[in-house]
């Protein structure tokens, strides 16, 4: 099968809308299709990665456990916009999994290298 570079751009906070959750479902399918998958987290999307989500009282599945599945699928290219973290008072230490913190401009360069960009 042809391998293409798929980047998933996550821009939304984790629980207010379903975008983040359904985006993750596509990420896992693309990985199962053995595509070259990367994820970029911009804007409120950085909140998806924050550790310590407590979602029991709102009756919604938490993300934190699912991030572990990414490594099982060999999805290890996670890029987080430094400016988006800083604007929200966050650093890489606040995140649940290891990521590469890049400037928006650097993430823009990564986007230019992709074959397929899916933005959620």
């Amino acid at each position: 099968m042809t391998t293409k570079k798929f980047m998933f751009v996550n821009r939304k906070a984790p629980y207010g809308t379903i975008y983040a959750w359904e985006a993750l479902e596509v990420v896992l399918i693309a990985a199962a299709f053995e595509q070259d998958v990367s994820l970029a987290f911009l804007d409120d999307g950085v909140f998806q990665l924050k550790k310590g989500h407590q979602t029991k009282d709102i009756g919604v599945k938490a993300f934190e456990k699912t991030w572990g599945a990414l490594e099982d699928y060999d999805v290890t290219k996670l890029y987080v916009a430094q400016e988006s973290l800083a604007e929200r008072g966050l650093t890489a230490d606040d995140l649940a999994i290891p990521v590469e913190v890049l400037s928006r401009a650097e993430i823009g360069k990564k986007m230019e290298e992709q074959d397929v960009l899916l933005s959620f």
Partner: protein
Amino acid sequence: MKFAILINEGPYTHQASDTAFHFAKAVLARGHEIFRVFFYHDGVNNATRLTTPPQDDRNIVDRWSKLATGSELDMVVCVAAAQRRGIVDDGEMKRNGKDATNLAPGFRISGLGQLVEAGIQADRIVVFGD
């Protein structure tokens, strides 16, 4: 050029489906190919035949159905997103023990692999969403 289209928003609330429709028509009018139109998130709501807009408004669902039958467009609705939102064909009705179907003509329900395949096969995948 071979295009694929991803629609992530439902009809009427959001312009994504309208804009995607006009884009799809323009693509075909210019002699390009559309490998697939994939409906995801609330975009699956573009596929319910029970939509009944006021008579002086456009019928977004019928418009897609007519485009599909007129140009053999492959229009795929994500099964997981459809199940969450109650978009049902015969197979899903039987599988999930429901008592009705509502999938409009020209659409079919299938998995997210169809979206990934569209990304692989098309020269460009264009996303319409929020």
